[in-house]
C-alpha cells in the first residue's frame, strides 16, 4: 500500500516537474487579451462584424485591424468593455434593428407568374425578376430568415417580418436581400414607411394595394418639409431616421396604408 502511494506520487511528481519545466522553457505565448476579449463578446458567432466569429473578431481587435463597435449584437456595453481591455475610448453606438420595407402580402400585392424552382429570394429574383408584380417588393422566399442567427425573421403570407425584440442588428439580412429592402433602423423609432417602390403612383397601384404613391401627405401632416421627418426618393417616402417622426396620427392618415406605428413590427397591419 505504501509502496503504491509512493509510486504514484513519484510518477506524479516526475510528470509535474517535466510539465512545469516544459511550460517554462518550451511554451509559446499568445496575447492574453484575446481570451479576455472573447469572454466579453456575446459569443453568438453571428458574423455580423464581418469576421468569421467572435474569436476571429477578438484577434482582429488585438491586431488592430478591426474597429471597435463593429459588434452590433453586444451593443454599447460590449464596446465599452472592449475599449477597457484595449485601453481606448469607446464610440457610442445606438442599437439598431432590421426593418423589412414592404407590406405587400399575398392579399395586397399581385403575383405575375408561377415560380417553380429553388425556394430562395436571390434565385427567384434571377428568374424573370421574381414572381411578384412589384419589382421592388419582398418576394417572401425567406433568404433573410435563413441567415438570421437569432431566428428573429419569419415569413408569413409571402412577406418577411422582423421581431424587434429578437433582432440584434447584425445586418446579415440586409446583405442577403436581393431587393435591398431591409434596412437597419434605430430601435427607438416607431413610425416606418413599409414600401420600397419609387415608381409613380399609378404604376405602384397596378401591382400593389398598399404601395407608397409619393403623395407627401405624411410630410405635410408631420409639420411640412421644414420639419424634415421624411425624405423622398422618386415617388417613395422615406423616414429620416436621424430625425424620426413621432406623431402616430400621420400613420392613420396615410392614404396608401403603407405606414405603421408599431413597437415590435411583428403584427404589421
Amino acid at each position, binding site marked *: 500500500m505504501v509502496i503504491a502511494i509512493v*509510486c504514484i506520487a513519484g*510518477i506524479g511528481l516526475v510528470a509535474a516537474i*517535466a*510539465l512545469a519545466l*516544459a511550460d517554462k522553457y518550451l*511554451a509559446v505565448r499568445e496575447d492574453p487579451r484575446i481570451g479576455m476579449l472573447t469572454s466579453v463578446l456575446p459569443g453568438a458567432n453571428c458574423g455580423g462584424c464581418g469576421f468569421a466569429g467572435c474569436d476571429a473578431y477578438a484577434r482582429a481587435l488585438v491586431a488592430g485591424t478591426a474597429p471597435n463597435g463593429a459588434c452590433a449584437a453586444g451593443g454599447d456595453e460590449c464596446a465599452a468593455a472592449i475599449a477597457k481591455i484595449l485601453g481606448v475610448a469607446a464610440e457610442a453606438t445606438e442599437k439598431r434593428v432590421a426593418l423589412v420595407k414592404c407590406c405587400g402580402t399575398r392579399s395586397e400585392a399581385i403575383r405575375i407568374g408561377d415560380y417553380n424552382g429553388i425556394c430562395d429570394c436571390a434565385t427567384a429574383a434571377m428568374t424573370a425578376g421574381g414572381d411578384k408584380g412589384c419589382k421592388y417588393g419582398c418576394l417572401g422566399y425567406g433568404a433573410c430568415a435563413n441567415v438570421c442567427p437569432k431566428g428573429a425573421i419569419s415569413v408569413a403570407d409571402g412577406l418577411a417580418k422582423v421581431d424587434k425584440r429578437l433582432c440584434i442588428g447584425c445586418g446579415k439580412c440586409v446583405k442577403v436581400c436581393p431587393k435591398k429592402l431591409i434596412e437597419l433602423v434605430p430601435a427607438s423609432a416607431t413610425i416606418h414607411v413599409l414600401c420600397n417602390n419609387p415608381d409613380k403612383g399609378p404604376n405602384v397601384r397596378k401591382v400593389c394595394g398598399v404601395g407608397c404613391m409619393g403623395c407627401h401627405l405624411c410630410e405635410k401632416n408631420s409639420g411640412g418639409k421644414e420639419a424634415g421627418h421624411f425624405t423622398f426618393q422618386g415617388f417613395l417616402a422615406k423616414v429620416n431616421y436621424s430625425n424620426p417622426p413621432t406623431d402616430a396620427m400621420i400613420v392613420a392618415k396615410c392614404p396608401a396604408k403603407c405606414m405603421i406605428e408599431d413597437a415590435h413590427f411583428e403584427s404589421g397591419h
Partner: protein
Amino acid sequence: MLLVGAVLVNNFVLSRFLGCCPFLGVSKKTETALGMSGAVVFVMTIASAVTWCLDHYLLTPNNLGYIHTLAFILVIASLVQFIDIAMKRFLPPLHAALGIFLPLITTNCAVLGAAEINCKQGTGFCEAVFFSFAAALGFGFALVIFSGIREKLAHADPPRCFRGIAIALVTGGLLSLAFMGFSGLVKMPY
C-alpha cells in the same frame, strides 16, 4: 495478421467500442478526421511504449499490477501534455496539423485501452508497440470512413429529432454492423 486483426476484425471503435468520444467528436470533416487519426497513431504508439516500460520495470517487479490503470492515466496525460508543448515549440507545422487534437486524447480510453490490453496479454515490447500502432491505424481508418459518411450526411435531411449526434450514432451502429462481416477473418489471440 496482427495488423489485419487490429485494423479490421477487432477494430477499436467498431468492435470494442473504445474511443467513441473522438469518433463522434471530430468526424464532421475528413480533414480533421485525418489529423485526428495522425494524432492518435502518434500518441498511441508512444504511450504504449512508455506504459510498457513502466509496467515491466516499475509496477510488475514491485507487485503493483493493481494500480496500473491509475499510473497509466497519470503517465499518459502528462505525456500528451508534454508532447503538445514540445511539439508547439519544435515542430510548429506538425503542431498546426495535430495540435488541437492532442488535448482531446489525453485520457482517451482507446489509448488507455491499448495500454491495458498490452499489459494484460504480457506481450513483448516490439509486439506491444506494433499492436498499439495497428490498433490506432484501425481507429484512424474507422474515423476517416465515418467522417466521409458524415460529410455526406451533412447534406442529408434527416427528421428533426435525429439531427446531429443521433444520426451519427445510428450510422456508427450500421458501420459496426458492416464490420461484423470481418469477424472470424483472423483468429485473434485476444
